[in-house]
């Protein structure tokens, strides 16, 4: 259960990136899972090369994520902004195929792991594994940093303004293209960071991102679009739920349950959650 809660914060972090891009650009970013996987491999490569504290490596990974996100935005996403949702869905999906294809060619689909551990501690019956604690702490710090950025700084406010009303923001002198590129880059960087954190917890393959992408969708739908802290809370909820059900059912059923949840939430609150977020 506790582990579930701790992992949940990483789910929340992964979902924040998706939610940011979705909310600001109205683009459902299907490269999300692939970028999470890239974050995992980024951590793997940097850690095996440098052997320094894995959490310090989050910084270069986030920076690389920002650059990569900007690159993807200008090469593929920029052209489909304002076109029907089908186009952006397929464009990001194509990028996803390219990343997964290249990743499979380079690393095959065999599992890797980052051999780094933080000592844990035990309180009564519960054992707190160090890596889980540290990953959760990092996720929470990043979530708060993002919240501060969005609500306290000028570029952050510009992102929110564009999300609210692109035309009005343009009239106020905000260059919406720059803002969209920035939002996309941040979203990608968050995905990479969450992937990097996950890589310190579990072994992973290039295809592992897919299941985190799925969880991100569920979390995003649960949380509604926009608030990073909302996504964090919904992530915790999902982690808790997973922790609660895993003793009783086989792990192979979990994606099924998550997707059931996704569909049910969307049907029970048809636009409900989103309507509130938009209003």
């Amino acid at each position, binding site marked *: 259960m506790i582990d579930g809660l701790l992992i949940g914060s990483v789910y929340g972090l992964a979902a924040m990136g998706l939610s940011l891009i979705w909310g600001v650009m109205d683009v459902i970013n299907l490269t999300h899972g692939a970028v999470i996987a890239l974050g995992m491999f980024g951590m793997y490569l940097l850690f095996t090369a440098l052997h320094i504290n894995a959490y310090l490596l989050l910084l270069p990974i986030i920076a690389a994520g920002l650059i990569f996100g900007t690159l993807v935005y200008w090469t593929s996403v920029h052209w489909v902004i304002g076109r029907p949702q089908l*186009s952006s869905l397929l464009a990001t999906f*194509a990028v996803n195929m390219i990343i997964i*294809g290249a990743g499979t060619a380079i690393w095959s689909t065999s599992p890797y792991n980052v051999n780094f551990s933080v000592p844990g501690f035990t309180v009564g019956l519960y054992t707190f594994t160090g890596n889980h604690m540290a990953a959760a702490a990092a996720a929470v710090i990043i979530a708060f940093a993002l919240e501060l950025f969005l609500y306290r700084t000028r570029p952050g406010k510009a992102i929110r303004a564009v999300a609210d009303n692109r035309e009005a923001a343009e009239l106020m002198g905000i260059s919406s293209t720059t803002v969209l590129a920035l939002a996309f880059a941040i979203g990608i960087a968050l995905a990479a960071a969450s992937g990097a954190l996950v890589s310190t917890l579990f072994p992973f393959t290039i295809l592992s991102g897919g299941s985190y992408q799925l969880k991100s969708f569920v979390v995003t739908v649960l949380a509604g679009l926009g608030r990073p802290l909302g996504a964090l809370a919904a992530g915790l909820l999902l982690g808790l739920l997973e922790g609660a059900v895993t003793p009783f059912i086989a792990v*192979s059923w979990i994606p*099924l349950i998550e997707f059931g949840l996704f569909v049910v939430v*969307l049907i029970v609150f048809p636009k409900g959650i989103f309507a509130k977020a938009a209003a």
Partner: protein
Amino acid sequence: MSPQPPTDAAAPSRESVPSASRSAPLTSRRGGLLLHPVFWLTLVFAGLMIAVPLHGNNVALREDLILVAVAVILASNLNLMIGYTGYVNFGHIVFYGLGGYIGLYLATVRHWNLILAALTAGVSVSLLALVFGVGILRLRGAYFALATIGVLVAVNSFVANFDPFGRSEGMYVSFDAYAPLGGPMRALWITYFLVVAVMALSMILSLAIKKSKFGLGLFAIREDENAAVVLGINARVFKAIIYSVSAFLPAVAGTLMFYKNGMIDPSIAFEYMLSLEGIVMLMLGGQGTVIGAALGGGLYERLRSYLLTSPRLSNFHLVIAGGMLLLVVLFAPGGLIGWLYRLIPRARKVIE
């Protein structure tokens, strides 16, 4: 509930649309369909696909062409959802795989006649799709697309845990299962002919739907679902029907293909990549057109076979596929056929 027609003037159209869809568009428009060039093109194409490998008993060519036929079947039926209705289905392969499972189970464990087994598989998968469709088609646009991944995951984990279907080990076709068709050699040819027939049927079905009032309703949903509903199209019913229809022929083809291959297991039956490549085929050829879907399916399949067998490029076939998809989506949303339309505007009248 769909909105009530505000005036009497709207009432006739409200009545006529569903009735046209129920009274089988094939019969009401038979004359138009039989005269259509695409109809003849399909027959000639299918005839050639049968005659050429049969001449000289060319088994290698047959094996290549059967993959082309399957690609065309998948792309054509996916086109009914993506191209006609504007709904992306990421889990289209589920129909093919599940059809394969049900048909193989009936044909080998229950010893049914192959054609009967394939048709039963088609009908049951269609019915299942109808049930799923009524649920998830309440979601619009991108949300539906995400839910289709869920259907794939759901069916995959169900089958992998289902005893009669051999759980994750799958099922094998014993050698004597081919006896009713006159031994394995003949059985392979017969399944090939059947798959080509299903391919031709897929294209004719696409054409018939496109030419029907039902098809017009779907196109209206694609352009603007809210407007279509206001104009009296029962979008929810239309979408559920087309989702179910797009399941039928892939399921039949699934039975035939897995019977021919002699085995099935969850990882081959529900291969996510193949599902995704179906989308690439469709976009490449030109979504929304009958010929485009077929052309994209055929070309992509040949390209894929080439890449997979080439020693240097085999690892990169997904990268190339993704790159092609990206280029098509960004710069030529109409695909090859869209490009042809722009080049020769009159082609629009002949090539559907």
